[in-house]
């Protein structure tokens, strides 16, 4: 993407005023999208973002600057700005030897989206619209969106690292509105993988559209959600966001270091039910949170965070691992070259157990079954978190019964982890998600088998 000698010169400039560590992150991202709404292909859009972010570390201080100008002069100006921002004292000249690393698991993409005719992408939208509307006359509105991105990155730093990655992601989303006596209800379904256009050889957009339509239609008959604390069963695939919020963020070492995590100082302790083994795994090929190297050049890894309920590790980026003198875990990520990296999750999932999914439901006398979760939010310092249910049902006398309307559930991370009393054998990965932290969004994946939490507060209105 850039000449090695240019990168080398930029790093030397960045270090000239006494920096201890310098890094150049170059990104060239092309994206395209097509949207159908209200029965009409509204618009195709395409974009290009290309630039470099440069950081310089002096002591505890990180200076950062970015530029869209990738010429020698543009990079030099950014390097000087980053070095000045790090307010360095010393001086002198440091040499930087770069060693190009080959990615451990390069991404395999069969069909680059940029090689696919725009008309072919538009056709997917029309098929989805038709399939969703065919689910029933109550479907009043359909929006279908196709999106792809190709993100090429290069990371080089003053430790000599030089590494590149080429990340291709393809996404298809359908949202519907159904209209009935009780007003409007919405349905949503998405498909996203870190692959190219071959995604649509394996999955049919009609299936995505039908699921989105069915969700909206089902909810037309939904009752108000219950209000109060109940057992909650979460269906396979749909519920990874529970762990993402209940403990994932709390295991990010930057938050732990600042005392802003309830999991601080708990390594080696039993923090969850023995049924819980939680993994964050950036190597899961094709999953939404997959990559070959993170945005600091470290190879993605499979990291076991909780094993049989015992907290085994946190997640780390370059700064935090450097400070603690340990290897990185491949969790240093950033939204774009305009952002500083920080500790982020990749694909976070609960390992499947041996429970019979039907048995988990039938042994629940009265509770809520959540088939699909929406997003969530956590306060890592208190551990309190919420997550939304977008498709949920009552469980009465051990059977899934009527659908309920949307709402949030609220719980406390450490308590919920202990309260997990059943884990099924039907593990499935969930849906593509975007995780937000400190204003930056990055793609993440998640997965769970069927599981039960003994007690969660369901935020409905029905007494």
């Amino acid at each position: 993407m850039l000449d090695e000698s240019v990168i080398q010169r930029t790093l030397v400039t960045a270090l000239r005023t006494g920096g201890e560590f310098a890094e150049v992150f170059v990104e060239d991202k092309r994206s395209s999208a097509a949207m159908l709404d209200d029965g009409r292909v509204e618009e195709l859009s395409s974009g290009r973002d290309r630039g470099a972010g440069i950081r310089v570390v002096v002591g505890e201080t990180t200076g950062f600057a970015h530029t869209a100008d990738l010429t020698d002069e543009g990079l030099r100006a950014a390097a000087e700005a980053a070095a000045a921002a790090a307010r360095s004292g010393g001086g002198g000249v440091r040499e930087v030897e770069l060693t190009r690393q080959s990615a451990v698991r390069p991404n395999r993409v069969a069909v680059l989206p940029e090689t696919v005719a725009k008309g072919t992408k538009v056709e997917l939208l029309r098929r989805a619209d038709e399939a969703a509307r065919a689910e029933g006359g109550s479907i009043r509105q359909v929006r279908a969106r196709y999106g792809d991105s190709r993100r090429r990155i290069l990371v080089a730093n003053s430790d000599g690292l030089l590494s590149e990655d080429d990340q291709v992601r393809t996404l298809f989303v359908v949202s519907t509105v159904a209209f009935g006596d009780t007003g409007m209800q919405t349905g949503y379904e998405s498909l996203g993988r870190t692959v190219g256009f071959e995604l649509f050889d394996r999955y049919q957009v009609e299936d995505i559209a039908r699921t989105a339509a069915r969700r909206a239609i089902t909810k037309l008959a939904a009752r108000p959600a219950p209000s109060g604390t109940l057992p909650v069963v979460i269906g396979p695939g749909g519920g990874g966001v529970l762990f993402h919020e209940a403990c994932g963020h709390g295991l990010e070492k930057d938050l732990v270091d600042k005392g802003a995590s309830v999991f601080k100082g708990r390594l080696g302790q039993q923090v969850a039910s023995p049924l819980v083994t939680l993994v964050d795994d950036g190597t899961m090929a094709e999953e939404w949170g997959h990559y070959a190297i993170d945005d600091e050049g470290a190879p993605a890894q499979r990291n076991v965070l909780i094993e049989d309920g015992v907290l085994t590790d946190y997640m780390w980026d370059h700064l935090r691992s450097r400070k603690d003198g340990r290897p990185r875990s491949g969790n240093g990520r950033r939204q774009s070259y305009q952002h500083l990296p920080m500790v982020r999750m990749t694909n976070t999932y609960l390992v499947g157990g041996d429970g019979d999914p039907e048995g988990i439901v039938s042994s629940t006398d009265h509770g809520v079954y959540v088939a699909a979760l929406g997003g969530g939010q956590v306060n890592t310092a208190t551990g309190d978190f919420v997550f939304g249910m977008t498709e949920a049902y009552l469980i009465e006398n051990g059977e899934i019964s009527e659908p309920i309307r949307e709402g949030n559930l609220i719980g406390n991370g450490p308590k919920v982890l202990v309260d997990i009393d059943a884990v099924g054998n039907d593990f499935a990965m969930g849906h593509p998600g975007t995780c937000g932290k400190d204003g930056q969004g990055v793609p993440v994946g998640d997965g769970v088998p069927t599981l039960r939490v003994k007690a969660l507060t369901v935020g409905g209105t029905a007494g």
Partner: protein
Amino acid sequence: MSDLVDIADAVVAQAGDDEQLEAYVGRSTDTQVRVYQGEVEQLAVADSLGVGVRIVHEGRQGFAYCGTFDREALAETVNEARDNAAFGEADEAAGLAEPDGVEPADLDLWRPGLAEVATDRKVALALELERALLAADPRITGVESCDYGDSLGETAVVTTTGIRRSSRVTGCELVAYSLAGDEDETQTGFGFSLGRDVDELDVEAAASDAADRALRMLGAVQPPSGRLTVVLDPWVTAQLVGIVAGTLGAEEVIKARSLFAGREGEQVAAPFVTLVEDPTDARSWGASPVDAEGLATRRVPLIESGELRGFVHSTWTARRMGTHSTGSAVRAGFKSTPTAGCRAVALTPGDRDAAALLADVGDGVLVQEVSGLHSGVNPISGDFSTGAQGLRIRGGALAEPLREFTIASTIQRLLHDLVAVGSDLTWLPMSAAGMTLVVGDVAISGA
């Protein structure tokens, strides 16, 4: 006029004979300082810029953007937008804005002095905030983040249809998240101060807010489930008002996604409720003299005395509904196309302050923070359920702190269940203003 207009002119000059072309150019210079334990943890300085190109040809629209002013890249972007337009479906209402004779308000939103403020002074402000927060109370144990940020932003819109306008705005902020407690318990709180220039920032106010909001949560317990009167803190009110405003965008109405479609003239809220969008109010954080299509912004009444008056419009929504744009086109920067939306919406304040309202309520819950607005609120069905924390109100005064509960209703009901609007209007860093708001009979889910 800004040099951005020249850049936009050069792009617009590439339009073909029978096509409409819009160039939307944005540039911002930002500084972000984060301090931790008396030292600078991060300091970032950056210029961000780019151009979004919209082309309408025979009723079909295409869009492309690039994050640079490089001439070659801009030409490529124009071609890409043109190519994209060939794949859209024709729409009679498609088209760019045209001058409508409304002059933009003269708003004082740009303080050139901000560009001259030395980085050292910005760092000093953030350090001062951290010191003030840590000194506020011995139970403040740490600072999760303590930031200074500023931005000088400029935009220009030029079209082949006669639009040629630019606007610029400065802003800066101090924000801190505090940690309070002891071995057994941690609570968090935030405080901030906003200004167009650094002289308007109030370190003490930000520090004491961040401290107070965490300290008063110490010892919080989960309340029992039930129905109670809820008093919303201005911060929470602004978020609720923002959600309601989101349902009043005409695009949502046209596409059958608004709760309020076809309900103009109906009583949709309690009779004392008036909601107005007014980006020409310079106090609002979203103030702007021009909208994202280059038309003058203006005051738009949305709800008057509880009655629905209308919606906010962009050029496209206005054509579709046979009316005029209200100058309410919004877009998320140069990377996206415009839609109709609010940028400075506020309830008309009542005449009683927060203390008087608490006394009136007598028995209830003050909600000081909500979470999961994106996951538990559905602006199409109206289902409303959020995580919450706050304080019990007993005998008209604040009592014990409460956490790990939800408040739930529907957007439709909430508007009718409003009991009072406070006099304490505050503009916050979002598209809506806040004030104390009292809502009767809200479902609380807890233990």
